């Protein structure tokens, strides 16, 4: 073998190894989710196949006893409202900052910029008091307001796009008698579609997966979102790994489906969203 061929083989070997490292833990959990509690008890090891590959009982248990239906419902409400709000607020901010020259414009920009440097987890102790005093604690409004609040990434994505829309479009609309709001609604917003798609994807994944905010702000069981409801499996299902695994797979599958369908957009979204 030539040196080049050896190098090539090593590259493929490393890729296959990495694939195994990623897929093996997930596959084992999937296999576990199909086993019965009897199979789990007879200690046959984690890598054995389930006796009946179509045994979905654990999924039923996880879905019903784990209250996953209401969790998916709560998550959906938060997703829709928070993302809708983020899109509106982000695009309005970007429009105002890019198309107007006003006093304190630099200051406003700096405020958004500095906020991006402050990791949310560090200020939660005091944010909690504010959310509490606004009466939003233990309601769906707490995470919604917090997700909409300081989303610097989406503001940044929108700014990039607004900047690329020629000002001449605004001007011709103005000559036709449109005011600033009509320009925003009829000219800018429709042209932001690609940016909106990016923001919806990036934000959607973050909101769907977030644990910290719902965990702190919505302790009551009725308000469980998918991450907090899944977290509660730790108590009642204790060592029932077959049920816990089923719950984990239930949470992962929607992500997998979305990922497979929107792969290209998701990559683009993350490269655009994070490299600010």
């Amino acid at each position, binding site marked *: 073998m030539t040196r080049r061929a050896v190098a090539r083989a090593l590259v493929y070997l490393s890729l296959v190894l990495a694939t195994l490292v990623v897929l093996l833990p997930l596959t084992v*959990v999937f296999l576990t989710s199909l086993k019965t509690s009897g199979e789990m008890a007879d200690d046959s090891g984690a890598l054995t196949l389930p006796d009946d590959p179509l045994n979905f009982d654990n999924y039923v248990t996880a879905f019903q006893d784990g209250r996953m239906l209401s969790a998916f419902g709560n998550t959906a409400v938060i997703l829709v409202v928070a993302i809708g709000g983020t899109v509106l607020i982000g695009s309005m901010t970007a429009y105002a900052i890019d198309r107007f020259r006003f006093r304190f414009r630099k200051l406003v920009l700096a*405020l958004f910029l500095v906020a991006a440097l402050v990791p949310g987890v560090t*200020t939660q102790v005091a944010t909690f008091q*504010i959310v509490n005093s606004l009466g939003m604690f233990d309601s769906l409004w707490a995470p919604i307001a917090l997700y909409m609040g300081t989303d610097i990434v989406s503001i940044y994505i929108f700014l990039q796009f607004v900047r690329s829309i020629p000002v001449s479009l605004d001007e011709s609309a*103005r000559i036709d008698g449109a005011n600033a709001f009509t320009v925003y609604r009829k000219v800018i917003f429709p042209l932001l579609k690609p940016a909106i798609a990016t923001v919806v994807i990036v934000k959607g994944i973050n909101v769907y997966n977030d644990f910290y905010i719902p965990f702190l702000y919505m302790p009551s069981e009725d308000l469980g979102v*998918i991450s907090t409801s899944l*977290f509660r499996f730790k108590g009642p299902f204790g060592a029932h790994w077959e049920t816990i695994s089923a719950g984990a797979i239930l*949470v992962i599958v929607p992500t*997998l489906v979305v990922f497979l369908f929107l792969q290209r957009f998701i990559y683009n979204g993350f490269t655009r969203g994070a490299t600010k």
Partner: protein
Amino acid sequence: MTDTTRKAARPVPPAAPAGPTPPTAARRPRRWRGVTPWLFLIAPLVLLIAFTYAPIVNMVAYSFTDWDGVSPELRYTGAENYAELFTRPELFEVFFVSGYYLAASVVQIAAALYFATVLSFNVRFRNFFKGVLFFPYLINGVAIGFVFLYFFQDGGTLDAILSLFGYDGDRAWLGTPASANVSLAGVSVWRYMGLNFVLFLGAIQSIPGELYEAAELDGANRWQQFRHIIAPGIRPVLSLSVILSVSGSLSVFEIPYIMTGGATGTETFVIQTVKLAFQFNKTGLASAAAVVLLLIILAVTWVQRRLVPDDKVDLV
């Protein structure tokens, strides 16, 4: 991408009131012109101040009191909380846990760099490998926590794999502080490597292809291409990744909280702060801790911006 936008932004005179405002706007009453942008900015600014700046100000204020977060009384105690933080070793110890995650970030960035380079050239099943490497980043943190709790369990996945190779399994991977922290840091590499990988891949692909062709004509090998074309081309993203890993390593919460609850020496700074504030009702002390963490992260960011000045956040 960053470069072109910066150029495009330059001709705009900074905050000049007579800048590119449309000429037709003069027809409208003057006082409305100044108000319009603020109408668009009310909602975002209110949210920004209410949920970012007000908390920071309050937090600094709380950090000088002995407030418990509930009672109406609070006593001003000066720098007592800070003194307690720096003199009680068990409160400060949590910073050493971050060391494990910092070390893991090095592994993570190196692996991401390697896979991004490899997969930016022609490789069979390229999209499959790309998808597999990135997917963990999209998975719910609680689900990942459970997957790896099972992975590291006695007789769990890892033990089963090791016994395939003849090692005797049955180790409590999460049983001692050192092995628990290494295991958890490993999980964090598993989870976040894909994000770095995709960022690097995007940066590498924005390098014009002719550069590689020219290099190949000049007889450059892969390593030389990486050293002289790829590495300089992705420097801004690389430095962004470094800063994200440092602040990420300092503010680890989810994985250790879900998997161990902070037991066996895996308590991180954020877990401790959450416990202080919401379990032991020591809002004052927790605020002081959070202020310290915030200052450290801001300092790290500032140092990084000093060292790599061409990587300014480009918003203006």
